[in-house]
């Protein structure tokens, strides 16, 4: 092996190491430096009624106070999978398309920029997993903190080489008690499976 080739391979290894290290450094970090996202409105009947109507979910514990009182819950509860809805950003409609579909102005998560810059520009949502600790009641105030939980080593997928990125969001009530968690996983891939 020539000196030049050794140098080239050494640099490539350093670059790869640097990329992996930069990914690893983001794991465990919150995606926002601004702290938890708090629901703009407490858990409320109008939003629950709107949600139940959209999905034609006729579970009476969401909208019928009498039926809810007779249930195990004793009062109206929010649909458990509305957990993520309470803290969704209030959209800024003007400019939504120009922002690439992002409902609000914001900075792109550092892990996504890092993967984009390395050629993993494709994005495919892969998994959504919820753990419900307790059902929310009317008046509950919800906060969410999202942390980058893991970035997989590079894997070959049918879409091309890529990394699975997993965030975990912890939802808490006004007292700080955990009410649920969500894991969300995407695949960031190099479209067409083109080599690096």
């Amino acid at each position, binding site marked *: 092996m020539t000196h030049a080739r050794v140098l080239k391979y050494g640099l490539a290894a350093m670059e790869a190491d640097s990329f992996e290290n930069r990914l690893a450094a983001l794991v465990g970090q919150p995606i926002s430096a601004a702290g938890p996202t708090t629901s703009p409105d407490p858990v409320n009947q109008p*939003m629950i009624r*709107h*949600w139940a*109507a*959209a*999905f*034609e*979910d*006729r*579970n*009476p*514990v969401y909208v019928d106070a009498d*039926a809810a009182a007779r*249930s*195990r819950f004793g009062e109206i509860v929010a*649909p*458990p*999978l*509305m957990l*993520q*809805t309470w803290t*969704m*950003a209030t*959209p800024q*409609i003007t400019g*939504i*398309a120009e922002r690439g*579909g*992002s*409902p609000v102005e914001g900075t792109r998560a550092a892990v996504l920029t890092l993967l984009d810059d390395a050629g993993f520009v494709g994005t*495919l*949502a*892969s*998994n*959504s*997993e*919820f*753990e*419900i600790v307790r*059902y929310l009641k009317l008046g509950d105030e919800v906060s969410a903190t999202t942390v980058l939980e893991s970035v997989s080593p590079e894997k070959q997928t049918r879409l091309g080489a890529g990394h699975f990125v997993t965030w975990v969001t912890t939802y808490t009530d006004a007292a700080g008690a955990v009410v649920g968690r969500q894991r969300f996983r995407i695949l960031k891939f190099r479209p067409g499976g083109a080599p690096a």
Partner: protein
Amino acid sequence: MSDVVQSMDWRTVAVGDELPAMVIDVTATRIVAGAIASRDFMPVHHDRAYAQSQGAPDVFMNILSDTGYCSRFLTDWAGPDTMVRRLAIRLGVPVFPGHTLTYTGQVVGLSRDSDEGLVDVAFRALNELGEHVSGTATIGLPVPQESSP
């Protein structure tokens, strides 16, 4: 469709029991209603022209709608005293207007947790393109105290 009033008795549930299928006729209205009710304003879920500019043939269902329908599928079956403890889905092909989405599932496990009976369910939802979601869930039901003989 009848209203959900009666909850299932956990003691009568068996591994292998099939959940009643839930069939959703998907329209643009349904997709938009679900996206907005879940406060997901990404234009691919309500603006066909925008969706097409992103390479999709039409608006498509958002993930918060998927988890919403999954929870309805579980509680339509098990009743209002159900507590959804855990829901995990894997995402497959997209859902567009004109599709029929059919949810099926079966009981794969039973256990007890203090005063609650737990049921593990494996499920999937298929449309014309293939498997839209597959997943597992754990629901809890209150178990009546056994009366003394």
